[in-house]
């Protein structure tokens, strides 16, 4: 991979720090009125999720990380691994629990997701911002209550539990915001 000098740093650049791939979340040029310039970077370790700050000298360079985001289709869960496929090439990858993490709550077969690959291996899965999932279990709906008041838990086909309005019934398909886990509307 190419090396990047600190004057090329920018948000979203993926680099290797202490052997781990990291994403630059925030890059700030620091130059006191007198004295040398530095670049202060907020980094996110793509393997552990840890976010921290590191300061680089103006001529310091770091190795780029072979990290790329791929649009893929979610195929199935085999009890241990989650399987994804690139639609054009039919290339398949399998991601473990660590990489899929909270995204597993929102994975519906054949949905499009973003898979982050590091040296070809999946390290993170990002679901679409909105998904449509069926309610498999919730208390019976209350007739006439369409406008206001109260919410109740509902279990979705993926196992996720979300708060929904009282009028929602089992078997309905709901639109969910995966970034917050909030109910948006009926699909």
């Amino acid at each position: 991979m190419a090396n990047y000098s600190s004057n090329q740093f920018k948000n979203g650049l993926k680099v290797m720090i202490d052997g781990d791939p990291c994403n630059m979340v925030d890059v700030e040029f620091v130059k006191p009125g007198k004295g040398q310039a530095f670049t202060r970077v907020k980094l996110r370790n793509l393997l552990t999720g840890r976010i921290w700050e590191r300061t680089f000298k103006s001529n310091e360079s770091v190795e780029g990380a072979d990290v790329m985001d791929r649009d893929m289709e979610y195929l199935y869960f085999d009890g241990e691994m989650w399987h994804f496929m690139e639609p054009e090439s039919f290339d398949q990858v399998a991601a473990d629990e660590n990489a899929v993490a909270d995204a597993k709550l929102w994975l519906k077969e054949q949905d499009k997701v973003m898979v982050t690959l590091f040296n070809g291996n999946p390290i993170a899965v990002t679901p679409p911002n909105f998904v449509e999932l069926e309610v498999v279990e919730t208390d019976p709906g209350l007739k006439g209550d369409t406008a206001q008041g109260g919410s109740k838990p509902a279990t979705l086909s993926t196992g996720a539990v979300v708060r929904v309005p009282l009028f929602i019934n089992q078997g309905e398909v709901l639109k969910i915001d995966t970034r917050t886990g909030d109910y948006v509307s009926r699909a």
Partner: protein
Amino acid sequence: MNPTQWQPTASVDNLKRRAEVLAQIRQFFARRGVMEVDTPVMSHCAVSDPFIDTIETAYRPHFQAEAQVLYLQTSPEYAMKRLLAAGSGPIYQMAKAFRNGEYGKRHNPEFTMLEWYRPGFDDQQLMDEVEALVSEVLGDVAISHYSYGELFQHYLGLDPHQADARQLAAVTRQHIEIELDDDDPDTWLNLLMSHVIEPALASRGAVFVHDYPASQAALAKVKTGQDGTEVAARFELFVNGIELANGYHELTDAAEQQARLLKDQRSREQLGLPCRPLEMRLVAALESGMPECAGVALGVDRLVMMALGTSNIRDVLAFPLNRA
């Protein structure tokens, strides 16, 4: 260059506020009888400070003639001091200044600097005038005063005038993750200042920091501080943790000025930085007698940022570097 990005990054409303601030500054100095001057942006000489990189231009008397290197000013300081020595009296200037590589949320390599000089003032009197100007633009601002030493004691428990590079490096590593090996105490002091103290000052509103280490005097006089240590008669103004102005009780000793220029040049040699022509006309001007005075440089773009409550310089510039 992206042809679809033809628009300014600052809104027209922000540019109106910017124009108002420029007008307020000019009125402020007109009322106080300070003369506006206009010195060249291109010079045969460059700044000596090793950590400020000058942008070079090529002047040709004829398009086929050999180019002569001219340097874009990094501040109008040298030229204004030559005017002071020539008997100008109090002067100010709002000028474009240029610094290579300084590009970020608070920096643009081409920026607007307000610089002014007050014969007969010392650093304390000039701080009062800076406060008056800033209050005029930002509304009444009460600025607190802390010495550099006080701040380092308070936030880091160390004496910046006594600690050596090894001690400073150890303290720095407790606060900042960095791979750096440097035996210049000022490198560590600057890191601590910019990474620990400046962010801490964000909650203190407007703050003057004065009595810098003598080693960071730049073009300020060195004086004896309260406890007998030598300090620079230099101050900086921080507003909400952002550096806004840097001022000096100006050095008027020609021999000392020459020594500092040569020392900077030696540092440049040692660091492998470009050695450009030194402004020896400044030394000559001081020799002929520059009046005792105080001077300050203030970042106009940052002042407009503060007036508008924005934290990105792009919001106050029509066309920052990537759209220039």
